[in-house]
């Protein structure tokens, strides 16, 4: 799961993940999306840029 | 003592001497979650 807050500054960034993922998969430039979402510091930007969702890979192993 | 579950055939297993599923022979078992209520600190 996407971390709730930015590790460095503590801004809540998990709320933007769904929209970021949708628009990124649609082929939009991540820089434009992040600017749109109002993430101006590079600490918050890297949280979304570098995130890989693995919960669906974990779920079968119960 | 809480029971175990076989990782392959998902059946409930009791461990006696060997760690092995009596139904399919698989050697990987999961420990089942206990029935008790667990309190954790959110830190």
């Amino acid at each position, binding site marked *: 799961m996407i971390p709730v807050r930015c590790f460095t500054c503590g801004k809540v960034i998990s709320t933007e993940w769904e929209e970021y993922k949708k628009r990124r998969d649609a082929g939009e430039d991540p820089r434009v999306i992040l600017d749109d979402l109002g993430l101006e510091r590079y600490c918050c930007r890297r949280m979304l840029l570098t995130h890989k969702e693995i919960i669906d890979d974990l779920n079968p192993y119960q | 003592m809480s029971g175990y579950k076989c990782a392959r055939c998902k059946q409930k297993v009791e461990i006696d001497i060997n760690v092995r599923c009596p139904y399919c022979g698989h050697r990987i078992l999961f420990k089942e979650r206990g029935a008790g209520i667990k309190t*954790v600190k959110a830190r």
Partner: protein
Amino acid sequence: MDIAFSRLESEVAKFVLSESIPAFANSFRRTMISDVPKLAIEDVIIYDNNSALFDEMLAHRLGLIPLKTNLSEYKKKSECSCGGEGCSLCESVYTLSAEGPCLVKSSDLIAQNPDAAPVTGEIPIVKLEKGQKVVLEAHAEINTGLEHAKWQSTLACGYKTYPVITIGDNCDACGHCADECARHVLKLAKKSVEVIDGKLIDCSMCKLCEKACVGSGWEDAAIRISSDNTKFVFVVESDGSLPVKEIMTYALTDLKDKSDSLVDVLTNISGAL
């Protein structure tokens, strides 16, 4: 001492603190970060959880959710009349029960007191597959950022000294400094370079312009960057649990109370001698 706001919203404030000293600016910053109390989930009682996340992980995620805080409504647990056991005066209770397949969000966290609900209902907590289930109860309490970062109500909270750009008479308007400036603070005028109106505050004092000026042949750079140690440019951001204005006023009152009590202690000691 004077504060002039260039921006004041409920979640962001930018202001210039003038006629002050670095010691005050820094203690103000530190008080805002670590001494302003707010609500955050501390104890989580888990009845059932067979999701892909461990109980501790789930509890940690819950703890980071910002909760709307009314400081007059709750007391710190250690100062409460219940003696730290937990009562309605020092604790806010939430329940969560969800069954998959679904995405559990912070809006599924049902608060007993709607005034202390999560700031936003859109925070994903855990994704559940079919047959997975999470049932839990969470207790939030008031504390400060000194104890744990989840009780810290400010995000980006910092200051810099006010930049001063002096352009000497020996400037030949070559424009190298304006090209070099990363924040686009300088522009080329007829006889020399000038600071663009309202852009001075953006100067990061990196001194690239000084280097460019020396590089263009002058023995002594015509442009000099220094800082005014009595003026401070502040940025304060809130996570939404408290408005920035309340954070600032609380921090200032707290600072005042603390210095007053120091004075009291000092007079007591000197009186006793």
